[in-house]
């Protein structure tokens, strides 16, 4: 691809500017995709840690766990509608106060000591709660609040001390650190009526339900119905999760389209300037497909070099970025973003390629 690379080499300023522009866009796309993934991870890392397949919530909660309350009858019915292991979850948002009197918002998730949710949760140290007033805290919270196994904290307005017995590897739900404890403790700190047995029931398999609804045995009113969701559906119902992801996807898509337009316009103008030379080359018998390939190579080369520079800038920024910024790098996702960008470069080169096809040597000679 002598033509493609020699032109870039000899027209350094022109191509450097466009590469710089692509590098900037690549950087923005890579950072935004890392942020999108980081935020998504902060919404869902605890959920994925359970390795559950499905979840059942009160129908009135509309898929939101914090709004769901299940009676014991409902819990029993739910368990009858699945063949997998089940775990009851008591959910409440509360405040954790450390020994140094600093306060942190947390999502308390209570379950039974032998539940698969506890068994599946990955710990970086310690163990899961086995007795009342024992807690496992998210590693990020432990780091920021300087909590350690063996320390005591309080939850909400209750002054009862809770002992930290473990640190969970990565446990966040709706961008808030999760604290695991027993279901009985949930009853103590949650302002729910004693008739409420849990917020949700998760299962390692699906629920047998009709249109996602279980009619419970103790159902006396329509409000007693239970809705079932796969974990993927449940995640989509997390407050703000879908809107946040859609916003990021939209921004990244717009940036990809901007790349396409930049490459198309830039190469189109360059090709217009080169048309007399292209016409002569065609007259001399240089195949049109060779000239088109040369332009496509230029388009993809510009994007690839810009992408590499953007990637380096992203890594450099990631090195210095504070921990509080939720950036999460995933090679497959960043790879898809990079491939998408290269594809845009290739597509952007098609318009100028069309112009090359039309270049007429006869017009030049006459």
């Amino acid at each position: 691809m002598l033509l493609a690379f020699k032109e870039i080499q000899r027209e350094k300023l022109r191509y450097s500017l466009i590469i710089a522009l692509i590098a900037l866009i690549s950087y923005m796309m890579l950072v935004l995709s890392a942020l999108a993934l980081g935020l998504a991870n902060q919404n869902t890392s605890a959920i994925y840690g359970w390795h559950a397949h499905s979840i059942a919530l009160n129908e009135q909660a509309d898929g939101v766990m914090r709004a769901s309350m299940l009676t014991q009858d409902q819990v029993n019915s739910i368990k009858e509608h699945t063949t997998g292991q089940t775990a009851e979850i008591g959910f409440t948002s509360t405040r954790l106060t450390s020994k140094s009197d600093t306060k942190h918002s947390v999502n308390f998730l209570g379950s039974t000591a032998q539940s698969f949710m506890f068994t599946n949760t990955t710990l970086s140290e310690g163990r899961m709660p086995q007795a009342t007033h024992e807690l496992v805290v998210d590693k990020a919270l432990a780091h920021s609040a300087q909590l350690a196994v063996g320390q005591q904290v309080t939850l909400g307005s209750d002054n009862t001390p809770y002992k930290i017995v473990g640190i969970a590897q990565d446990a966040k739900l709706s961008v808030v650190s999760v604290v695991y404890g027993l279901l009985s403790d949930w009853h103590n700190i949650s302002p729910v009526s004693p008739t409420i047995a849990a917020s949700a029931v998760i299962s390692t398999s699906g629920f047998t339900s009709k249109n996602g609804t279980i009619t419970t045995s103790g159902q006396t009113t329509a409000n007693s119905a239970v809705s079932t969701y796969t974990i993927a559906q449940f995640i989509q119902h997390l407050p703000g999760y879908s809107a946040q992801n859609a916003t990021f996807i939209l921004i990244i898509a717009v940036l990809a389209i901007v790349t396409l337009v930049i490459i198309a316009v830039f190469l189109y103008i360059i090709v217009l300037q080169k048309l007399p030379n292209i016409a002569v080359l065609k007259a001399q018998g240089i195949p049109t497909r060779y000239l088109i390939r040369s332009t496509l190579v230029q388009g993809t080369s510009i994007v690839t070099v810009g992408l590499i520079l953007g990637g380096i800038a992203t890594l450099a920024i990631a090195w210095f970025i504070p921990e509080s910024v939720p950036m999460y790098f995933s090679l497959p996702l960043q790879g898809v973003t990079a491939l998408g960008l290269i594809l845009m470069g290739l597509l952007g080169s098609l318009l100028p390629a069309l112009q090359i096809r039309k270049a007429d040597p006869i017009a030049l000679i006459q």
Partner: protein
Amino acid sequence: MTTPTNPEHYALAMRDVTKTYGSGNAQVMALRHATLNIPHGHLVLILGPSGSGKSTFLTIAGGLQTPTSGKITIDGQDISTLSKHELDQLRLAHIGFVLQAHDLVPYLTVEEQFKLVDSVKPKGNLSKTQLNALLQELGVDQLKHTLPSNMSGGQQQRVALARALYTKPSLILADEPTSALDSSAVHTVGTLLQNIAHTQHTTIVVVTHDTRLASLADDVYHMQDGVLSYSLGQYHQ
């Protein structure tokens, strides 16, 4: 000596070639029943004023456009039956074009202009030694690593000629190669073309309005209003 009539004996032969543009009242006949036979190793001039049909002749002879009627053969091959791709191949292998401007790719050095040809036609070109000898003969051997923008018009034209000869074509079609040159340079270029035609057995057809080259040509044709007529005599008296 008997002149051969079989087109296979000629580098370029045209039989009753006509080219018409437009239709109805707007119809223009750019080439009218042109017939000629150009032998191998001849320097041939097609002289004529602007708008006489010279460029149409050149583009049809070079397979860039098809005639409305008539037959054209290059080295005995009827080019009217060739596909676009085959015409590209024909131009690349058998025809060298030397045009008024834009012959050289502006961002390639002289050496790279030949590498470009190698990248699409790797075989059958001049060897490195032959190319060096040609560049030396043309007086541009010192410019191998020079970009066209750093060369004079005359130097560019000679490199363009070398570029056209690089594929060892049997036919070179040149469009006004001397239009921007003074008389002395015209004589130099003309002698060079004549020498190439005679020593390398390459047929060179020059389309021009510049009569200064006529005395060096083996054959001279006049083109007026699309009509081609043989007129060597008046320039070789």
